[in-house]
């Protein structure tokens, strides 16, 4: 009886041990652009402190009338997935929006998705570009 009680209590105790990150949470930044502009946007996003990003190649499905109205005749797209700290997000999105407006054929869409959890301190520091947290030597 006593053992059973212990068993049911265990997960509750474990839950308390979890530390919760409340500072600089990570976000997944998804940027959809024309394939020819993928490298440019990847470099650009990296300059804002995104240490890990990858690109997926797909194709868009918007109706042709809308595409031509927006000046996007080519359906080949690149979806750039980057992991970035929350504090960088406003700056990145603002600059991306400007690039979307000003670059020829550079139109795109960007949005962020909150990341629920990450395991590993060094992984978290790497993803959120916490250079000061790394001991050197």
């Amino acid at each position, binding site marked *: 009886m006593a053992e059973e009680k212990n068993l049911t209590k265990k997960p509750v105790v474990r839950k308390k041990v979890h530390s919760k990150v409340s500072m600089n949470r990570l*976000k997944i930044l*998804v940027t*959809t652009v024309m394939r020819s502009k993928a490298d440019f946007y990847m470099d650009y996003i990296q300059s804002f402190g995104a240490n890990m990003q990858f690109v*997926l*190649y*797909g*194709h*868009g*499905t*918007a*109706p042709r*009338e*809308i595409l031509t*109205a*927006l000046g996007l005749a080519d359906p080949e*797209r690149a*979806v750039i997935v980057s992991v970035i700290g929350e504090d960088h*997000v*406003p700056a990145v*999105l*603002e600059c*991306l*929006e400007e690039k*979307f407006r000003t670059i020829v054929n550079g*139109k*795109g*869409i*960007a*949005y*962020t*998705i*909150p990341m629920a959890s990450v395991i590993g301190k060094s992984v978290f520091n790497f993803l959120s570009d916490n250079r000061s947290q790394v001991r050197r030597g």
Partner: protein
Amino acid sequence: MATNTHELIICIVNNGFSDTVMEAAKDAGARGGTVLNARGTANKEAESFFHIAIQPEKEIVLILVPLNVKDAVLHSLYEKAGLDTMGQGIAFSLPVDNVVGLTPWKAAEHKDAEEKK
């Protein structure tokens, strides 16, 4: 840049069914999407046990929709490309915080109307 005005719907279907998905989504109010090619994996043992063949070639359709049409789109996908259909689709949505680069729908419509005139 607006907060919590959109959701990202991810729909995973068998290869060749992305058109079905986009049609269903557009009927419910979505505007466009991006299709990615992918390879699915399944439990081989369970596959033979249930006598079901899982096609490994998949397509992932990403659709960014406004919050107010999200439920309609998900329902439409479930009906027209759900697991009971040939597409064997799974659809779910993720919250999205900040969206930039979307052309306002009303403005685009207006532009089209002007061009027709």
